[in-house]
């Protein structure tokens, strides 16, 4: 049994050795180097474009942040109405008519 295993293991080793011979080191085709450099350049260009895009996005985001900050910090002149203006606005025409009547009654009584 053990001998059988050894024979099989020997056969397997022989097969591996034969495989090594059947697949020798191989010369690359003439296009190997040009294609390799094309791939390198393509990836380099992709990385460069990605970097540019990322830089553009960062710049835009920074500019937008600055603008928003400025918008929040700078005081706005849509001035709030003063107390008197609020009072004037709140006074309806009816109120003014009432006050005229009240005033005329007051003057007649004197």
């Amino acid at each position, binding site marked *: 049994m053990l001998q059988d*295993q050894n024979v*099989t*293991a020997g*056969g*397997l*080793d022989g*097969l*591996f050795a*034969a*495989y*090594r*011979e*059947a*697949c*020798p*080191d*191989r*010369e*690359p*085709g003439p296009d*190997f*180097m040009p*294609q*390799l450099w094309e*791939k*390198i350049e393509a*990836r380099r260009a992709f990385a460069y474009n990605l970097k540019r895009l990322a830089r553009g996005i960062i710049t835009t985001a920074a500019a937008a942040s600055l603008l928003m900050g400025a918008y929040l910090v700078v005081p706005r002149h849509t001035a709030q109405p003063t107390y008197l203006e609020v009072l004037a606005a709140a006074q309806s025409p009816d109120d003014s008519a009432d006050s005229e009547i009240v005033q005329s009654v007051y003057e007649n009584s004197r």
Partner: protein
Amino acid sequence: MLVDPEVIIRAREGDDAAFNLLVQAYRKRILGTIARLIGRPEDVEDVGQEVFLRLYYSLGQLRSPEIFEPWLYRLTVNSAYDYLRRHRRRREARMADLSEQQVVMADAAAGTKVDQDERRRGRIREMVGALMSAVSEKDRILLTLKEIEGLSLKELEKVYGVNENALKVRLFRARQRVLKVFEASERKSAGAGV
């Protein structure tokens, strides 16, 4: 080492001419290794280019030129592994799955023009391919590096970054699995021959 360490240092620093020298020195060996690892001659150059592409973009991380070769082997192994994972074994009838008699008949049918030696090599490639497909991609690569490429355990240790004992265990198990398949195919051939 096939190149001067100075060339590796220059390539690491971004010298394209030095990188070219590196590729020219190692491409033949790497393509041969890939051919034996993946067993598909038509895709060997693509995987080889992937290896050198990875080398180009990772060379900056190489600490010392002395470990360049295990580093390159590691890149080769990773690329081959990625390739094998993408192209999981297709369910196709392989020559090694056939009986010896069927193989002889297939050989005869292949015509007489084909060189006898090349046919024998083709059959060996098919047989080893079928045997290796019985184990996982990881084991296949490990076995190929050890049994066919002839890397020592020390070299494999550097390639895999794991200790020798763990490698021995993995190798033993992978070899046992392949041995079982080999025995079965031997029995099949013997049965067909009787």
